[in-house]
Structures are given as structure tokens and as C-alpha cells.
């Protein structure tokens, strides 16, 4: 007997995944009552004879008006019925709802034909496991039809009544679903990535927690795991498509006023637009971005997993998101990663300052680009924050200035020790005119530097001349950047 009771559905369960989910709940008292029978009531007298634990569905009886609904509630209460279902078009007023509350009888209104509703209820009650299985099966079927994580979590939220679910990353970030679900304690099911490693958690909050119901929800969440992993894998497999799509999404996202579609697409791609971002820009000299991208992205994935690498006009960008991300930490990670990556092309990287949300990301990306563009001997990864104003130089049209400089300083440039002298001018000016510092930087004796400065003066170039110093400095900077890096 007790096992039978255990098997029977409660009103709550009929609300959650039974036919009552289609009904408007007017009074939700005593939802834990089990439902053993269903009675389609055409005459009020039928209620008078109904057995305890009956779900009473008013059909023609209710058509007599609100008073008849109240009479049914009263009789249902007297007979220990489990709930009363009335047709929506009776227009149950507040006073009737209050009566049901006072009697503590659950009351529902259904828009459709009550007779059909009674049949559905009877079906559900006759075979509780079937009702549970039906919901599970429906979810499984819908999981199969969804291709994104968002869609799969959406199935749980839409189809499983009284449950809000979310897919939560290891760091607590909500990847998909209702963030409210993540906040409350509830069911948690770990979801592995396509590589089998723990990737995220499927979290569900239940409005009620009858044991049978918890089991049903747990089963459905388990069923969602494989499709979720597949959805993630699918995203990672089609690399070329992924890269092209990422590029589109990023372009759309970086507009001044990104559309909700763009943000949704970004979320679908697993990108977080909210929060603290640190952007990274990669540059490879003398390489076609288009040609280099497939190989680079493939190696990138091996090293940086699902961190996106998005090709741009003059390189690639990526970013780290999270409150713990700083320019320094990201720079270290990138430095290490680039070493491991063993890219077929020589890469330099710039790291922007941290920025919040989309505007912050946009700024950080710009800064990263500037930092990456600059040429700084010996440093593969440069932080915008460290470069400060020097980064401005990175914006200069180096080629044009170099060409102009080659004309203006022809005598110097074409002289045999031209490159040496140009480097010397740059070093002295970089060091604020200090020849000893410049000597240290160039790795020569101070006298050597002084000698070069004298020779320069002989060629008519006075690095102490205040009105020429800036132009000279820029010219040398441009020439140095335009020339191929001398072999060490």
C-alpha cells in the first residue's frame, strides 16, 4: 500500500509535469496532497459522492456560474478532494479565490475543454511513471533538436515546470540559462567538456522538492549532459567556420551600439561581454593574416583551449575575462603560451589595460593593438600600461616617415656607418641627451658615442639643437623601425 502511495502523483507533480501545467493556478494550497482519482463533474451532486484524494474537474456543473464553483469547492473540502479544476471562462472572482484559500483547496482554471483535461489527468494518474517518463522523453527529444548550450538549457527552463536551470562555468559564471537558478542551492550535475574533463555544472532550482520530482529533474539534467558536451564539441570542431563567425561577432560587438543580436551571438559563442576584460593583440611581421590564421588558430587552441583567437586586419586578438585578470598576469600567460605554441610565424603581443564590460573591452583591445604595434627590442609581449606615451610612436606611419627621412638625411643615411649613427642618435635622444646612458644602452664605450656625435656634427647634424631634436628623434625612430631588424 505504501509503495502505491509512493508511486502516486501529488498535485504539485501534476502541476510540474502533468496536465495541470497547462492550467492557471488560482490557489496553490495543499499541493503535496496525492491524487488518486479524477472526476469529471457534470452535476454538483457528483462532488458530493467523490472519494478522498480526487481531482475534481468541473465541466457543465461549473457553467452554472461562480456559485457552483464555490459549491464544488465546499463539497471538495468536505470530501477531502485534492484539487478543483474549473473552466477559465467562468471568470472566477477574487471572493471565490479567497474562499478556496480559506478552505485550503487547490484551485485551477483551464482554458481548454475540461473533459479533455480530465482525460489527460486520468492518464497521468493511472500511470505516474509514464507521466514522468513522458516528460523525460519529451525533454530528451528536444535536447536532440537544439545545437547550442543555450538552447539545451532553454529546454529545461521551458519544458520542466517549476524548475529554473542554468549552465554555470567552474568560476561561477553563468554560461546559459537563468542566473537566478545559479544563486540558490538546488540540484547540481557536473557537465564534462568534449575532452571529458570537467567543464561546467548544470544547476537547477526546484520550486518544490518532493522526492519523486527531484529524481525526475535529476534524470533530465543528466540527459542534458551529453547534448551539452556535443554542443561544445561542435563549436570547437568546425574551426574555419568558427574563426569566420568569431570575426563577424567581434566586429558586430565592437560597434558603438552593439545590437542585442550581437550580444546574444557573443553569448552563444561562449564569450562573456560583462565583467573585467584584459585584451591581447598579436602581430606577425610580413605575413598574410589570412594565410597564417588556420595554422595559428589550430596551435592556439591546443595551448589556450577555448580562448578565442579572432583575426583582424593586422593581426589577431583575444582577451581574458574575470575579476582576477590583470595586464601583468595575462602578459605572463601569453608569454608562456607563445613559447609553448611554437608558432610557424614570429609573433609579438600587446596587452591592454583591464576594462569593464563592452566599452572596457573595446578600449583594452585598442590599447593591446597599439602595444603590439610598437617595436621594442627583446620584448615579445608588451603591456600598454608600461609603454605609456611611447606607444604613441607605434601609431606613426613609420614607412612614410622613414622614406622622408631617407631623403632629408640622405648624407647620413647613405654613409657607410649610417645605421650605426642613426641608432646612436636615437639612443642619445632616448636617454635625454646623456651620452653615458646611451653608451650603456648601445653596449659601447662613452667615448665611442662622443666620437659619433662629433662626426654627426661634422655632417651638420646637431643633436643638441632644441628646434630640430624632435624631428630628428622621430626620423631615427622611423628609420630604425623601417629597416630590417639587424641580426643579433
Amino acid at each position, binding site marked *: 500500500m505504501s509503495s502505491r502511495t509512493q508511486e502516486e502523483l501529488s498535485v504539485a507533480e501534476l502541476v510540474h509535469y502533468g496536465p495541470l501545467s497547462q492550467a492557471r493556478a488560482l490557489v496553490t494550497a495543499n499541493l503535496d496532497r496525492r491524487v488518486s482519482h479524477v472526476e469529471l463533474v457534470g452535476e454538483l451532486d457528483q462532488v*458530493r459522492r467523490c472519494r478522498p484524494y480526487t481531482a475534481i474537474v468541473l465541466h457543465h456543473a461549473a457553467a452554472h456560474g*461562480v*456559485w*457552483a464553483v*464555490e459549491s*464544488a469547492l*465546499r463539497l471538495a473540502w468536505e470530501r477531502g478532494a485534492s484539487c478543483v479544476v474549473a473552466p477559465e471562462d467562468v471568470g472566477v472572482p477574487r471572493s471565490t479565490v479567497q474562499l478556496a484559500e480559506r478552505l485550503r483547496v487547490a484551485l485551477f482554471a483551464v482554458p481548454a475543454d475540461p473533459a479533455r483535461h480530465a482525460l489527460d489527468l486520468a492518464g497521468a494518474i493511472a500511470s505516474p511513471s509514464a507521466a514522468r517518463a513522458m516528460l523525460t522523453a519529451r525533454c530528451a527529444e528536444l535536447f536532440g533538436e537544439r545545437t547550442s548550450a543555450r538552447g539545451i538549457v532553454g529546454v529545461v527552463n521551458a519544458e520542466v515546470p517549476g524548475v529554473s536551470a542554468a549552465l554555470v562555468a567552474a568560476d561561477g559564471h553563468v554560461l546559459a540559462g537563468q542566473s537566478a537558478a545559479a544563486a540558490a542551492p538546488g540540484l547540481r550535475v557536473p557537465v564534462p567538456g568534449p575532452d571529458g574533463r570537467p567543464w561546467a555544472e548544470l544547476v537547477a532550482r526546484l520550486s518544490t522538492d518532493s522526492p519523486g520530482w527531484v529524481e525526475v529533474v535529476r534524470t533530465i539534467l543528466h540527459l542534458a549532459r551529453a547534448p551539452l558536451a556535443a554542443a561544445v564539441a561542435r563549436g570547437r570542431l568546425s574551426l574555419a567556420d568558427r574563426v569566420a563567425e568569431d570575426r563577424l561577432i567581434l566586429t558586430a560587438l565592437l560597434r558603438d551600439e552593439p545590437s542585442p543580436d550581437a550580444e546574444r551571438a557573443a553569448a552563444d559563442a561562449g564569450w562573456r561581454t560583462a565583467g573585467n576584460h584584459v585584451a591581447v593583440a598579436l602581430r606577425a611581421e610580413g605575413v598574410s593574416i589570412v594565410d597564417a590564421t588556420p595554422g595559428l588558430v589550430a596551435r592556439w587552441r591546443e595551448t589556450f583551449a577555448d580562448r578565442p583567437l579572432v583575426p583582424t586586419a593586422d593581426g589577431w586578438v583575444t582577451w581574458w575575462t574575470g575579476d582576477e585578470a590583470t595586464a601583468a598576469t595575462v602578459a605572463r600567460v601569453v608569454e608562456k603560451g607563445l613559447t609553448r605554441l611554437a608558432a610557424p610565424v614570429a609573433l609579438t603581443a600587446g596587452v591592454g589595460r583591464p576594462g569593464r564590460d563592452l566599452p572596457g573591452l573595446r578600449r583594452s583591445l585598442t590599447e593591446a593593438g597599439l602595444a603590439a604595434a610598437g617595436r621594442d627590442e627583446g620584448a615579445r609581449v608588451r603591456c600598454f600600461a608600461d609603454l605609456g606615451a611611447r606607444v604613441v610612436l607605434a601609431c606613426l606611419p613609420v614607412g612614410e616617415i622613414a622614406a622622408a627621412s631617407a631623403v632629408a638625411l640622405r648624407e647620413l643615411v647613405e654613409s657607410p656607418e649610417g645605421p650605426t649613427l642613426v641608432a646612436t642618435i636615437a639612443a642619445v635622444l632616448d636617454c635625454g641627451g646623456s651620452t653615458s646612458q646611451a653608451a650603456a644602452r648601445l653596449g659601447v664605450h662613452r667615448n665611442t658615442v662622443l666620437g659619433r656625435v662629433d662626426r654627426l656634427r661634422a655632417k651638420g647634424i646637431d643633436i643638441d639643437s632644441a628646434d630640430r631634436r624632435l624631428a630628428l628623434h622621430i626620423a631615427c625612430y622611423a628609420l630604425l623601425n623601417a629597416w630590417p631588424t639587424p641580426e643579433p
Partner: protein
Amino acid sequence: MREISAADLPALMTGSRLLSASTGFIVDACLDWVAELVDRHGPVPLVGVADLPPESPCAAIAMVGSVTALAELPPTGEEPELAVRALEARLGHPLRAVMPLAAATVNALFPIAAAAVSGLPLVDCDGMGRVLPLIQQSTYALAGLPLTPLAAVGAAGDVVVVDAAATRADPLLRAAVTTAGGWMLCAMNPTTAGHLRNAAIPGAVSRLIDVGRVLRTAADHTALLDDLTRVLGAKLLGSGRVVELSHDTRPTGPGLPANPTSVAVVEYTGAGRLIRLEAQNEFLLATVDGAVAAAVPDLLCLLDRRERRVVDPESVVVGDHVDVLVIPAAPVWHTPEGLRLAGPRAFGFPVGHPREGISP
């Protein structure tokens, strides 16, 4: 033998207002008119049905239709005589007495007017003991008295004679009433005093006058309720505030005029029980927390707790503070036949009358 003089009329009206709440100049005008008739033609003899020779032909007089329509289109004063004459012409013999169909408000006055102008006595009886919406819902019909032939007269001078089966007479008459301006004065239920003996609620007219005298002298609200309990056996179902009023909440009953109204009263005391009154022209059914507590043919009546006036379904508003009273109907209405004719099922409520106990 008792007589109705002009001096009795105010008490008669007060008494009859408990049964139906119509107020307005039209009632005053009809009262003045009947007083004028009684003054001109002399007091109307009020006779017991047993006082008449059994073979005396008699008929019921009643206005059928809406008091609101009557107030908009007052009688010309010719109607009672025309109705009596038309029925007599159809019957082929004169009447020897008239009686009320439902002695309440103007329908307590029209039979007196008919008696006065025709020089006939008024039988001290009634066919409803309250107001019921259909003309066949009377103890006369219950006892098998024929409803027709029936003569109806409108204020525009229309005279209609209806010869039809009892159930057809009401819809036919109602169509005529609508065309005639919303009300007609009828002479109906032609019978004899002998047949009337077992078909009428006796003493109904004199009871109205007695009740009216009590009501006019009651000192306060409590005394009023006590008096009503004493004189009419009234029972207080509860007191509370009208919280909801809805129209068209249930389908129109079979052939009933006007639209259904549902009134929700929440009691002041205790748990605040919900008293719901279902009305269509009259209050027909009362449930307390969903349990049927009272039903037609017993009279359900709302007394305004502030104004000492009867609140009818037409005048009730949300916020009214009311006593819900049940005044038991005449015993004949509680017989199975009586309940079949004028019990809740006759008004489309699929429930038994509380007096039937648990319904079958």
C-alpha cells in the same frame, strides 16, 4: 368582514416593500390613485375565500413586467377596468371577486384598484406570498388552476387576450409586454372561489397590512429584526459588506427576463464567511462558503443596515452593509410539487432546496 380603506394603504405598502423593494414616485402615484378610487367607490371588502359562495367566478390581477418601465410609463387608470372587462368578455360571464397574484408593492395595489372600479370584493389571499418572476410560478398553478384565458392591458391602450397552455402563456405575454412598453396589467387564473380554497395562500393581504404596521413602529434595527422574526419567521443568514457584484456570471435561466447578477457578501464576524447571492430579478439562491443555505421559493432579502430599507438586486452596490434575511415561503411551496415549480431547479440551479435535505 374586513375592509380596505385609504387609511390602510400606507401600512399595506410598507409591508409589501419587504417582499419587493421598489420605491419611487410611481408607487406613491399608484397609492394616491388607489386611495382616490377607494374614496370614490367606497372601501373594498376584503373577504376570506371561504366567505364566498364556491361557484363565484374570480380571477387574479397582476401587473406583469418591470416596475422601472411602469415608472417611465405610468398607468392611465383605465387598465384595471379594461382588464377585468376583457377577461369577463372572453369568459362570457362576470367575475364575482378578484385576488392578487403576488401581493407586493404595486401588485398589492392593482387588485385593490380592480376591485374598487369593478365594485368587487378582494379575496384575502395570494398566489405567491412573495414575488416570483414567472406568472405560472404560483400556488394557483400548483393547485392546477388554469392560467388562461388571460387578459392584458397596456398603458398605450393595447388589450391582448392570451389563450395558451400555461408554459406558453408566459413567453407569449412577455413578447406583448415588451411591445406594450415594458409592463401590462393582467387579469388571469380565472377560477371559482371553491377551487381557490385549496390553491391560495390565505390571509396574505391582511398579513401585509399587519407586517406594515409592525415595520412602521419598530424602534431600531434590532427591534426590526426581532419583529420580522416574530411576524414572518425571518431568519438572519448573516451580516456583512457587499464586496463584489458581477453580471452575466451564469447563463440566463429558462425564459427568465433580465440578466443574472451575483452578489458576494463577506461577513463581519468570525472567519468572514462568504455569502453569495445569485439573483435574476429576485434573489434566488444563497450559499454560505459554497454550501447552499437558502433558496427560492423562500424569500431572500437584503436589509440595508444603515437605511432600514430593503436592497433589491437592482439597487445593491459594492460597499453596502447588509443583513441577509431568509423569510420562509408558505408551506405549500415546500411540497415536492411546490419546489418543482418554484424551487432552485426551476431557476436553473441544479441543487436541492435546503428543506429537501441532501438532494437525491
